[in-house]
């Protein structure tokens, strides 16, 4: 089952892409073996932004360690915080108040929207269309403004804490979300006209970077990248958390397995996230936004695992506790790490120019991979 070993010929060209390269969206270093224009092998070298967050967390308390996780997948920072908070809550056996649950889901979905918008702009830029990048940032800015009002920051929110959320939502929150939805509903059709129906874009993505369902599972892929190959892996549906089981939404699955299928999954997810936000925004229950917890949190001895669906896939937080105030060992199962491992398999036999499209549809965020 392992990948065929590539023997380098004399005619082969070995090029380094990165660590500083615009198409890697971060400090990722790829060593590519080329035969003419055809990719024979891609070998990722990681660690340029490795901060050893797992080791750092071993000396931070259960309230403190959550802040480091905003810096992993910085486009899904709410969702990262959410997963950690859930894992600690499991250990403390704290019930999160309904108001906090709804706020959390709202924030998660807005984050997902912002993340997919940025991905859409960046992918279009990678395959040669520059305008979408500016359009995507215009809409993303609105979400960032909403976040700034409620959370105080635009990127590393640290808004979810064990027991609920850190502060109540800003009085303007609902109004501004409504404004955003009304705005983005018109704009997403524009996105489709501009890129989805664009024949050049379709030629660049259809039939490119194919990965079968079996391979996607074997590589441990998750999130929209795996759902593009027909894998059922939406954690929100399979293992519902917070209020996801009470919401009306369907898991989006495409069977194409190529770049275009992965693209379509994310486009549909944007519409789906908008519908989830719409279902909740006027139905935020009254009550506390945070459950009462002790000042110093102590988890009982044992192992705790929680998983959420980030914009990139399944994030798992695995805490081993020895009963103290700090975790004995903590492991972040990051979606990007597994998705990246499939890159070599997906690019073999493809053209070097298409590799950029394949990487774009995998939606890699390097700090998430390196941790």
């Amino acid at each position, binding site marked *: 089952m392992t990948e065929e070993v590539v023997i380098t010929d004399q005619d082969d060209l070995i090029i380094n892409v990165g660590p500083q390269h615009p198409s890697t969206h971060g400090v990722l270093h790829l060593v590519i073996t080329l035969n003419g224009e055809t990719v024979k092998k891609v070998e990722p070298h990681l660690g340029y932004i490795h901060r050893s967050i797992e080791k750092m967390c071993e000396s931070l308390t259960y309230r403190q360690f959550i802040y480091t996780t905003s810096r992993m997948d910085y486009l899904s920072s709410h969702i990262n915080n959410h997963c950690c908070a859930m894992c600690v809550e499991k250990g403390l056996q704290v019930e999160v108040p309904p108001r906090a649950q709804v706020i959390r889901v709202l924030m998660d979905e807005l984050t997902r929207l912002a993340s997919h918008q940025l991905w859409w702009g960046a992918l279009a830029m990678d395959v040669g269309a520059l305008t979408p990048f500016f359009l995507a940032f215009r809409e993303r800015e609105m979400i960032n403004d909403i976040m700034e009002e409620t959370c105080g920051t635009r990127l590393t929110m640290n808004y979810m804490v064990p027991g609920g959320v850190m502060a109540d939502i800003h009085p303007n929150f609902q109004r501004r979300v409504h404004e955003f939805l009304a705005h983005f509903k018109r704009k997403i059709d524009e996105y489709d006209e501009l890129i989805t129906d664009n024949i050049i874009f379709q030629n660049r993505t259809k039939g490119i970077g194919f990965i079968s369902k079996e391979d996607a599972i074997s590589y441990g892929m998750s999130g929209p990248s795996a759902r593009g190959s027909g894998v059922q892996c939406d954690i929100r549906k399979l293992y519902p958390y917070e209020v996801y089981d009470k919401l009306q939404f369907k898991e989006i699955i495409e069977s194409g397995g190529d770049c275009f299928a992965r693209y379509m999954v994310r486009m549909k997810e944007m519409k789906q996230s908008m519908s989830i936000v719409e279902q909740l925004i006027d139905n935020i229950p009254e009550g506390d936004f945070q459950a009462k917890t002790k000042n110093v949190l102590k988890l009982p001895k044992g192992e705790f695992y929680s998983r959420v669906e980030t914009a990139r896939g399944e994030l798992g937080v*695995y805490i081993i506790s020895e009963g103290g105030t700090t975790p004995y060992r903590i492991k972040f199962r990051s979606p990007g790490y597994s998705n990246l491992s499939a890159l070599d398999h997906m690019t073999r036999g493809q053209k070097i120019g298409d590799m950029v499209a394949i990487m774009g549809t995998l939606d890699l965020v390097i700090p998430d991979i390196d941790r």
Partner: protein
Amino acid sequence: MTREELKIKITELFPTAGFEEGGDTSAAGWLNVQIEATAWLPLAEQLKQKPEFHFDYLFCVTGVDWKTHLSMVYHLTSTIHRHTIVIKSKLDRNNPEIESVAHIWRTAEFNEREAYEMFGIKFLHHPDLRLLILPEGWEGKNPMRKDFEDPVNMIRL
């Protein structure tokens, strides 16, 4: 299969396997199995191939340093049956060795490389066991081990 059914099946196949009770993960219906390092590869093959197990999704691979010994933890789930199992294997701290499962689940290749550099665990018959995250010159230093000391960047509270 439910937790109990899995337990009976695995005891039949591997009588030496131990089971952990209690804890949050078993409350979620996950079976925690303790197995010797030598029995891991045959167990892994059975878990993947037997249609009643069909554990095809290896979603979390990690090492843990328990100071007296190391252990490897594998989280597996089945995309058809939707049951989850956690396999743990104790390793000798001075000479940690375990068979690689990269040919069974391809995701293991990267994850085992991470465990190799962070904990110094040797994966036998791994296709390409090299440093992945750490730069050159870090062979033999294992930063995730509890006794690792870095005089420059050590974080301690």
